[in-house]
């Protein structure tokens, strides 16, 4: 019988044979999804599991399937197939995609654009020449990111047709995600490149945010009773400020630079005493500084400080909005003030162009600038010195790298981008509250860096996007989906209770879930999801950074030996 099958297949061209094999493989994989399931969520869950399995172990599964076919007499013309032109080799995959799309179309449901885009990326990866292949994913992600407000407004994303994440991320969530990506990239310069464990990164976020509140709000409008400081009324390019409000109003674009520079200086000031320490000791001291900044923000009003610096627990508001001013508005049609920019967009989509979309695009531009600087610095003389310090401080010093100066630069650069994120966040929220800047933020940003893969900017971006999305909307979406599809949720869910009436309040246990995710990642991929190539080597072999006597006992390095 085996021979009969083998003979039957002999005359069939290689591409047809391959297409048939691929179809059969997918059919085997997908049949259980349509074979009637008891649970409503069963099919969706199976599809998700199958999709993940396909990504993780798709190739070995497919190879095993081929071995099965070969044992049934089908000859695998692997070598002949490899010599075929690329477009012929893409035929099986293309036809599979076309067939899937046809099935979706015929079944009457609108094809999910996300699915189409995903399949497009896979195809592109296959068809693009190898020297360009590395750009496919970044360019696609960037394209989707830029077009995201339009995709959302046109409802071109999935909205309801995808399990677990029923709704695509909203624009508000996307701004926060972008801000966190900025912070994670900044922290990556300290933790990932230079190997300095910083547990107080929130300090820089807070200083940036308060810079925005000082230089772009009516905060200093009132005369200060205690210090006798007069009321200030100063406007330098600030847009959307009402007449006679007073206070300092500098254009947010300028404040981004000013705030970032002030934050960088703060980074140097915090760094000078702390960077003499190594390892765990540095982590503890930075943690302390992070808390100090938050406490100063909380207590920095007339009653505690004697001078109203931060307005205490109520925070400072309103913080000005960015904008291009009336001249650019009249001549180039750019939005005058982001906050008032409803209906600014003159394109085919009416609902695009309000303040959140503009803040999102602004944040995206800042992320790109941060990314650019990250990559440029990594490949520069300074970046090399950072990595050298991470690898072996003693040897780096002996090779002429000034330890304190180089570490302080890394700290200041990281702080700079933390400050940028802080200014943009304050302007987005139009307010600054001291309670925003707690220890959780530091840990959360550190988790993003570790989860994504320390040192690799792409991994850090992925990790930050994932965790920030989970924190803003992802967990709530997941919880809603689970309550609806998996649990016997009666609809009588009580606020403040984790489990009530058969429902589970997932966001209430978010930090537990992040903990579990981190533990799993550390067990399965200890060097992060997308590790830097050299980092991976480091984790597999371990680092041997032995400290010499003087570094332990005196002067620069009071930290202990391992």
């Amino acid at each position, binding site marked *: 019988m085996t021979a009969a099958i083998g003979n039957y297949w002999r005359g069939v061209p290689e591409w047809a044979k391959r297409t048939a094999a691929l179809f059969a493989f997918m059919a085997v994989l997908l049949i259980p999804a349509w074979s009637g399931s008891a649970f409503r969520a069963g099919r969706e869950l199976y599809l998700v599991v199958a999709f993940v399995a396909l990504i993780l172990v798709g190739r070995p599964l497919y190879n095993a399937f081929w071995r099965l076919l070969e044992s049934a007499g089908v000859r695998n013309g692997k070598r002949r197939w490899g010599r075929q032109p690329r477009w012929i080799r893409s035929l099986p995959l293309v036809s599979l995609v076309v067939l899937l799309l046809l099935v979706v179309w015929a079944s009457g449901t609108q094809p999910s654009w996300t699915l189409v885009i995903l399949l497009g990326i896979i195809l592109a990866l296959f068809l693009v020449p190898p020297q360009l292949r590395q750009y496919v994913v970044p360019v696609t992600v960037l394209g989707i990111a830029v077009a995201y407000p339009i995709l959302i407004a046109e409802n071109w994303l999935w909205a309801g047709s995808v399990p677990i994440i029923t709704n695509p991320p909203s624009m508000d969530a996307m701004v926060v995600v972008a801000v966190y990506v900025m912070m994670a990239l900044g922290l990556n310069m300290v933790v990932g490149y230079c190997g300095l464990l910083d547990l107080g990164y929130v300090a820089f976020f807070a200083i940036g945010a308060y810079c925005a509140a000082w230089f772009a709000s009516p905060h200093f409008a009132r005369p200060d009773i205690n210090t006798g400081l007069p009321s200030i009324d100063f406007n330098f390019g600030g847009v959307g400020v009402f007449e006679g409000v007073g206070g300092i109003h500098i254009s947010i674009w300028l404040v981004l630079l000013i705030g970032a520079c002030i934050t960088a200086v703060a980074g140097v000031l915090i760094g000078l005493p702390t960077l003499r320490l190594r390892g765990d000791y540095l982590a503890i001291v930075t943690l302390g500084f992070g808390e100090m900044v938050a406490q100063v923000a909380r207590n920095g009003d007339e009653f505690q400080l004697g001078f109203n610096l931060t307005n205490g627990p109520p925070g400072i508001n309103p913080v000005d909005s960015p904008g291009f001013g009336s001249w650019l508005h009249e001549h180039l049609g750019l939005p005058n003030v982001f906050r008032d920019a409803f209906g600014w967009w003159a394109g085919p989509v009416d609902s695009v162009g309000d303040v959140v979309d503009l803040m999102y695009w602004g944040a995206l531009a800042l992320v790109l600038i941060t990314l650019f600087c990250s990559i440029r*610095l990594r490949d520069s003389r300074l970046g090399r010195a950072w990595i050298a310090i991470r690898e072996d401080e003693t040897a780096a010093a002996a090779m002429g790298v000034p330890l304190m100066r180089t570490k302080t630069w890394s700290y200041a650069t990281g702080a700079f981008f933390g400050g940028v994120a802080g200014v943009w966040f304050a302007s987005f929220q139009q307010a600054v509250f001291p309670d925003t800047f707690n220890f959780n933020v530091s840990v959360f940003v550190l988790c993003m860096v570790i989860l994504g893969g320390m040192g690799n900017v792409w991994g850090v971006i992925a990790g930050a996007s994932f965790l920030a999305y989970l924190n803003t909307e992802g967990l709530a979406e997941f919880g809603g989906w689970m309550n609806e599809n998996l649990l016997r949720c009666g609809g009588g869910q009580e606020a403040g209770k984790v489990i009530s009436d058969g429902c589970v309040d997932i966001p209430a246990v978010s930090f537990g879930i992040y903990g579990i995710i981190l533990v799993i990642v550390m067990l399965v991929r200890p060097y992060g999801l997308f590790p830097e190539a050299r980092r991976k080597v480091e984790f597999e072999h371990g680092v041997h950074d032995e400290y010499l006597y003087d570094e332990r006992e005196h002067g620069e390095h009071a930290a202990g030996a391992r």
Partner: protein
Amino acid sequence: MAELLLQTSGLRKEFGGLVAVNDVDFTIPQGSIVALIGPNGAGKTTFFNMITGVYKPSAGAVVFADEDITDRPPHFVTERGIGRTFQNIRLFQEMTALENVLVGMHCRLKGGILSSVFGLPRVRREEQQARERAHELLAYCSLEGVEDDYARNLSYGDQRRLEVARALATQPKLLLLDEPTAGMNPQESAEFTAFIHKLRDEEGLTVLLIEHDMKVVMGVSERLTVLDYGEKIAEGTPKEVQSDPRVIEAYLGTGAAAAV
């Protein structure tokens, strides 16, 4: 007598109650190859670390090229022109061979943070030249073809050579080698001896090396200094030192001198 490149006077290091190096006076003439020998624990590496600024001397002074470099940090000492290798290889393991050499050039390059971010032509040109020079240096140390390998993946001999290449990248006047031939076979040691001579003759370097392999020491060095228990017990040409009874005693034990 040639001009002195390095001079230590009364150099002393105490670790708690232990005197590791005891008031050592030591000189290195310009353009010479000097060896520092002694039994294990004699304080040779400690002496090295004090010269390069890794350790702060308890007392005494180090003068390099007419400048007092006592208590100066390692990067300052390196910038003045003292390059070194380590007894236990301390390469940047997860950087490529080329990157290791480029880090060695750190103090000879100027690219600052802003000019690097903006990619100014000056910095690009400097970087390009640095890479070319790094390639030349690696070739000079017979390390062609491994430029893009991670240092960890290099063979032991290549790692030793890369350490020297990295030290040479700092453009030193004085090269300190801490047991450079440890773990090498006799043929590699012989090649290395020739390489040290080549460095001195072609590059005009002054070399100070710590070494255990007597064949290398006798073959390469013009002057020898012997340390024992942190004290200098002998100094002179290899011939003189070889027959010094205190040296024989330090190496072979009491009474050995009489037997010889």
